[in-house]
């Protein structure tokens, strides 16, 4: 029988601050920054979204209040906005699916821990370490008409198969997808590999002994442990890909036309090219609400598990 006495909890010295007070003090700077630098501008932007303000019209607070006009215009009439939303959504779905599939494939390969694993592991993580603008720039070069990608296509399929990537909408979107998938597959790879390595071995062996085929073992035993990991990966990436800006800016500036215009690019254009700041703010809030809903939905299946872990 153990004989250790229950450890004493530190008692507050007289005059010392209570735990709750200390907690508040420690989190105060973080909250202050968040409030000042995020919440305040957010509220300003919110207010702005209900006005028809534009910088040429004088001070913000003199601007006319137009209620939900900006919002309704965006949702009903602004096809460019709706297309940008749809486009960003589809782009996200395609990119995330591809990133997941490739990331999973790589993770499964790396499970075996062959010779050279750690060196190759570092190599495969490289793309995600590169600045988004640089990634966009590199692929801008690669996809040039006289660039290496066309050279390789010509080598395999002949000169007629080469493409002017940035000329047509479809090929431009493909270029964006290729760029994004190259950039972020390593993250799925990293997360999925961690998840797969964390799957406990004995239940897998038990399943094999009970007669399960490899496929059955994967779906019935491995997947349940992997599910929360996969969802976290998707949520994290979704949150970031919705804001896709840097790579597309360098690749196509949203073109040709608005073929590759993501939501962020559209809002940027509204705010900083057209100076329709109020309108742009409204668009941003729509995106924010949408993102929050999306994350909420995606996290629903694992919310209990994550909360349990937190406790």
């Amino acid at each position: 029988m153990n004989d250790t006495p229950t450890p004493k909890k530190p008692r507050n010295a007289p005059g010392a601050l209570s735990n709750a007070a200390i907690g508040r003090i420690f989190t105060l700077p973080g909250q202050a920054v968040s409030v000042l630098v995020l919440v305040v501008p957010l509220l300003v932007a919110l207010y702005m979204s209900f006005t028809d303000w534009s910088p040429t019209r004088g001070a913000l607070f003199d601007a006319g209040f137009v209620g939900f006009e900006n919002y309704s215009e965006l949702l009903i009439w602004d096809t460019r906005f709706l297309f940008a939303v749809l486009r960003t959504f589809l782009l996200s779905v395609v990119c995330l699916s591809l990133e997941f599939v490739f990331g999973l494939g790589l993770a499964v390969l790396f499970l075996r821990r062959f010779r050279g694993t750690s060196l190759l592991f570092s190599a495969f993580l490289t793309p995600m370490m590169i600045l988004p603008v640089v990634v966009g720039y590199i692929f801008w070069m690669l996809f040039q008409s006289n660039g290496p990608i066309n050279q390789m296509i010509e080598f395999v399929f002949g000169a007629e198969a080469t493409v002017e990537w940035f000329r047509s909408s479809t090929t431009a979107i493909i270029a964006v997808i290729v760029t994004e998938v190259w950039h972020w597959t390593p993250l799925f790879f990293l997360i999925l590999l961690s998840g797969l390595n964390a799957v406990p071995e004995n239940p897998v062996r038990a399943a094999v002994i009970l007669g399960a085929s490899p496929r059955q073992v994967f779906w019935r035993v491995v997947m349940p442990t992997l599910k929360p990991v996969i969802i976290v990966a998707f949520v994290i990436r979704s949150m970031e890909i919705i804001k896709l800006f840097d790579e597309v800016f360098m690749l196509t500036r949203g073109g040709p036309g608005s073929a590759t215009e993501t939501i962020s690019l559209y809002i940027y254009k509204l705010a900083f090219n057209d100076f329709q700041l109020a309108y742009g703010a409204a668009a941003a809030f729509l995106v924010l609400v949408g993102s929050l809903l999306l994350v909420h939905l995606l996290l629903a299946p694992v919310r209990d598990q994550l909360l349990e872990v937190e406790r």
Partner: protein
Amino acid sequence: MNKPKLELVSLCKEYDNGSVIAVEDIDLRVEAGETVALLGSSGCGKSTTLNMIVGLESPTSGDIQIDGKSVVSVPPGRRNVGLVFQDYAVFTSMTVRKNLAFGLEVRGKYVLEINRAVEEVAELLGMSDKLEARARDLGGSELQRVAIGRTLVTKPSILLLDEPLSNLETSARLAMRRELRRLQSEIGLTIIYVTHDQVEALSLADRIAVMNAGRILQVEKASTICAMPGHTFVAGFLGSPPMNLIRGKFEARGGEVFFRRGDFSLALGAGATVPEGYFTLGMRAESIRLASGADARFTGRVSLLEPRGSEAVLTVDVGRETLKVVVPPHARLAVGEVVGLAVDRESLHFFDGDNNRATSLELAGRIF
């Protein structure tokens, strides 16, 4: 003669191209309905042997036969052998029912059949009221029953268990021991389990196979193995306290035969010839008794007295040897005191000094 349920023939397992030998030349026959314990300390190869029987590892050489047929090329899911892991490895994301049903579900059995089998096993293990509980909400011994039930549902012909009692608290251990014995008698299962705990081995098994360094040193009925150790390792492993072992030589002096090592000398009777070479003398702590005066065959100095409820264990230094002696609990002995000890000739065991195996010797006109 009936074929044995399981037979291991010259089983070997090597790793790293032979630089690590986990299991060396193991032969074992297990009859149907028997319970056999593989007993040994960690690293002796018992778990590797278990893994090979179930099919998680394949032997480097040798054969494994179940019901007379070699199963070495049969994958683990098809050998009809069940394994309960030391950490139970229950499927935590599923309910108890799903856990139990797993083996049949993956074989594509019909729902009705599955349900019947699951409920039967749940009843057998006393888990009928827990069927819908989530596996992750259960406690240690319940998890173990789920793990056992999970294999029983597939009606294996052999049940393997890895250290079945080591993760349980004492009270749960007794309960599980009873549980396993009940399963044995009710279903007639052949059970093989692995343990490092001799109590676990002695209390559950019909026969015990003692392993060390990848080899089986002795296979013997549980009821007799303590009394008849076939190897010094077995002698020194079993029993509480384990048998006293002294390695020495015989000599004949003045018409009497002695066993001697250093200052320790034990008279064995009248005689003139003695076997050559080294031998190990084994004396069980229970066989040595306190004696006084002329009865004492040798004397020693008390160094420790450990009360143990219904008995006490005395540690005595005889010359440079240390002996453990079981004495009555009320014996009043002080550390440093010199005591006389005696042992009956019938209780002496001898082991060959080279191969450490039990031998029979003719000495001083009698057979030891």
